[in-house]
């Protein structure tokens, strides 16, 4: 790690400006700089098609349309902003407080906690592969990252800021003035640039390099016998997991009413119905991707399933078994009583573990333009510059593991 730092510092010193903060002219690993100076995604999945470009199907199926085309500088600026508590009302939290790279870009909590310890309504969703999502948030109510991220930025119980203060704060910071100018062609610093940069960084969080992916591309030795058995349970029409958690992203991006229980004492979360006004969507939530799911416990919108095993077991508890008395939910037709055995549940968990891939994990900035420390989720050891990509093995290394 020290060597990485030194080389970065050497590079920074060698660049034209003597400023401490310069933006990387390189795209993050999944992306490649095109001739127009934009970072575009390259993945083996792009060799495959998918019906109507929807990115749903089986093993060799293409991805949905991706959000890319940002410049390396915009992405790197987004990375700094993402970790910077300067963006919150009191400098106490950043995006990374609830979306910590060490926890699959989630926070390990049942429900997230915003400024001054105020709880948020739902569990923090992972940000891996958000570049492919056509709707965001648990209730699917936002269509773009730029639109979505303004929610937590300004919600009183999340980051608690307000647009004018945020703009002034950034304008007052010489480092940021310089960085925004270099990322946005010397245009005056504006809030839209903040949103663009954050969206650019979030779109760069690509995880398509798991052992499962190796299997999908045709390397059948990449999965163990137990994991293949789990894959077959997963895609079977008994468990029906793949009907909604459809490869390659392991989500079909639809709203589904499952009848998931709330945490003890909490009222039923109306989910999508609250924003669409369609009562038939009561209790409906966006089907989340299962990529890197092993890293993002606890599970479901209410975050009250501690383990993957417990979550998988929910689906075999019987249709509507956790729906509160008096609620008439339009439960999804795939919710039934598949009577999965203990062995099948164990194998499902084995398979879900193969969806872990952090080989393109970004580096946590060793220092921030604000001078504040990068925000981390509670309980995550903060070593300042402790880069995570050291302990994330690329797929072939993972493959070698027992």
């Amino acid at each position, binding site marked *: 790690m020290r060597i990485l730092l030194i080389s970065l510092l050497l590079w920074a010193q060698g660049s034209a400006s003597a400023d401490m903060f310069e933006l990387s002219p390189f795209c993050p690993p999944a992306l490649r700089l095109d001739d127009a100076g934009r970072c575009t995604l390259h993945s083996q999945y792009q*060799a495959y098609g998918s019906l109507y470009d929807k990115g749903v199907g089986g093993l060799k199926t293409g991805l949905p349309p991706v959000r890319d085309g940002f410049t390396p500088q915009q992405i790197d600026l987004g990375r700094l902003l993402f970790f910077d508590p300067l963006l919150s009302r009191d400098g106490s939290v950043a995006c990374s407080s609830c979306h910590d790279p060490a926890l699959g870009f989630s926070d390990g909590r049942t429900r997230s906690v915003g400024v001054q310890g105020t709880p948020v309504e739902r569990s923090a969703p992972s940000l891996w592969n958000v570049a492919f999502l056509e709707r965001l948030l648990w209730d699917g109510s936002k269509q773009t990252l730029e639109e979505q991220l303004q929610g937590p930025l300004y919600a009183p119980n999340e980051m608690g800021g307000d647009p004018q203060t945020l703009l002034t704060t950034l304008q007052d910071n010489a480092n940021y003035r310089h960085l925004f100018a270099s990322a946005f062609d010397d245009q005056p610093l504006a809030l839209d640039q903040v949103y663009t940069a954050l969206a650019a960084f979030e779109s760069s969080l690509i995880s398509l390099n798991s052992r499962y992916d190796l299997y999908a591309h045709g390397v059948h030795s*990449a999965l163990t016998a137990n994991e293949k058995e789990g894959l077959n349970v997963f*895609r079977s029409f008994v468990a029906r997991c793949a009907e909604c958690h459809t490869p390659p992203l392991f989500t079909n991006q639809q709203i589904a009413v499952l009848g998931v229980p709330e945490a003890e004492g909490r009222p039923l979360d109306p989910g999508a119905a609250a924003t*669409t006004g369609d009562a038939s969507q009561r209790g409906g939530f966006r089907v989340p991707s299962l990529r890197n799911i092993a890293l993002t416990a606890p599970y479901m919108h209410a975050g009250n399933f501690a383990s993957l095993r417990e979550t998988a077991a929910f689906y075999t508890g019987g249709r509507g078994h956790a729906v509160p008395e008096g609620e008439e939910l339009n439960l999804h*037709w795939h919710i039934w009583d598949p009577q999965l055995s203990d062995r099948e549940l164990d194998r499902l968990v084995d398979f879900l573990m193969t969806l872990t891939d952090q080989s393109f994990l970004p580096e946590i900035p060793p220092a921030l333009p604000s001078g504040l420390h990068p925000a981390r989720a509670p309980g995550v050891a903060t070593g300042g510059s402790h880069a995570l990509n050291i302990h994330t093995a690329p797929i072939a290394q993972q*493959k070698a593991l027992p």
Partner: protein
Amino acid sequence: MTLSKTVLFNLTTTLLLLAGQAFAAVHDVREGDSIQAAVEAAQPGDTILVHPGIYRETVYVDKDDITLRGMVVEGEWPNLEGDKTLNDAILYSGNGFTVEWFKITHYKGNAIMGQAGNNFSIRNNWIVDTGVYGIFPEFGENGLIENNVLSGIEDAAIYVGMCDYIDVRNNRVFENVAGIEIENSRHALVEGNIAHDNTGGILVFITPGLPIKTSYDAIVRRNTVINNNTPNFAIPGSLVSTIPAGTGIIVNSGDDVVIEDNIITGNNTAGIIVTSQDFATGVAGDPASDPNPDRVQILDNVMFNNGGDPATEVKALMLTQFSTTGPDILAYKGAAEAERESCVSRKSAYRTYGLEEWGDCTSPTVRAADAVGSAPALAGTTRDVTTKMLPEPATPRVITVDANGAKLVYQGICAGCHTYNIRMIGPPVMAIKAQYGDDATAIAQYIAAPEKKRPDFPTMPPQDHLSEDMRLEVAKYMLELNK
């Protein structure tokens, strides 16, 4: 390489290629053997020949161009038996998959389930009580389902979901909840099937909440749809659990459906029901899903003795017309409206409900001369459409072994550890270029089985999962990087 060596090399390569094509292997599987083991050993193009006997397993095929063929000997079939403990008999994701001549019994989920395999053929199988579905291709393009016999299925015996360019022909489906269901699919020909004694015979559906939203361009033709009066035994909560017993054909939201030359008799609720999504209740709303069936054409069909004992909701409708029997054709709510632009030929021949605003799509009289192969297309019929499958197979889904494929592999895998000029987990590309010059072959060799080279870097993981040719392409790609 000298000239003669080059010639020899090319000749050998050609022979090897020819051998690969001409001598696709046949793997024999006999009772007591594992079919899956044969699938593991098979290469694309191979056939797995399964001899008569009982086989208790789930077979999954995640490679291309595999044929699973049962060998029926003097009436003895190879029988995949699920004992109601196994989930699915056959799962496939590969392209060009063929499965034929199997008896498949007593599974819990499906007999044959496909996810995104294109160019599939599912033929001549005998399927009994395999749980929720019988034949279930999903997300597939260009497929054939023919000559299968299916019974005792809790949902649809033959389900085509989110697929394109599919022919379903000459199958026999009976004593299922649904005989044949085309759901959120386009370009389907359902022809010459016999659907009898199901709850509902043939269904063309748009189901809300699925990622592919449309269902259009289906021809339902020359089927025999009779006595579909079996009480609904679907799993509570499933979509087909709302189908009233006694339904011959039901179009629920599907667009551009042509129903022609079928024999539809003895279905006690109705011969044909055309409805918008308000017929199936209990599903969460989906604003991206169009609930109404547009441009349905009911051409000439032989229909009589339908509606003898209609389901409660249809009986109530018919009572408003002072009738206690169900109709041959029922257009329900949104489906009845003129703006749907639906039409029916020979309307007065049938007992109908809700067709007041439908147009007249007069069918011509068909004579013997119109039926011969060389006859010109007969206007007002679909007789000239012989298939909805593609004239050429759907595009294969492969990572090509060339610069383009190499770019995807490099960026998808290698770039996790190597950047052009910054040290990451692995050395920068600049340093690698300095060491190897333009010797791509040496890199291709090294990455198959790397050893520790640089004291300050971890050993690179082996990339022997890539073919030798692909490793070379990736190495070349890497050496050409300049930023």
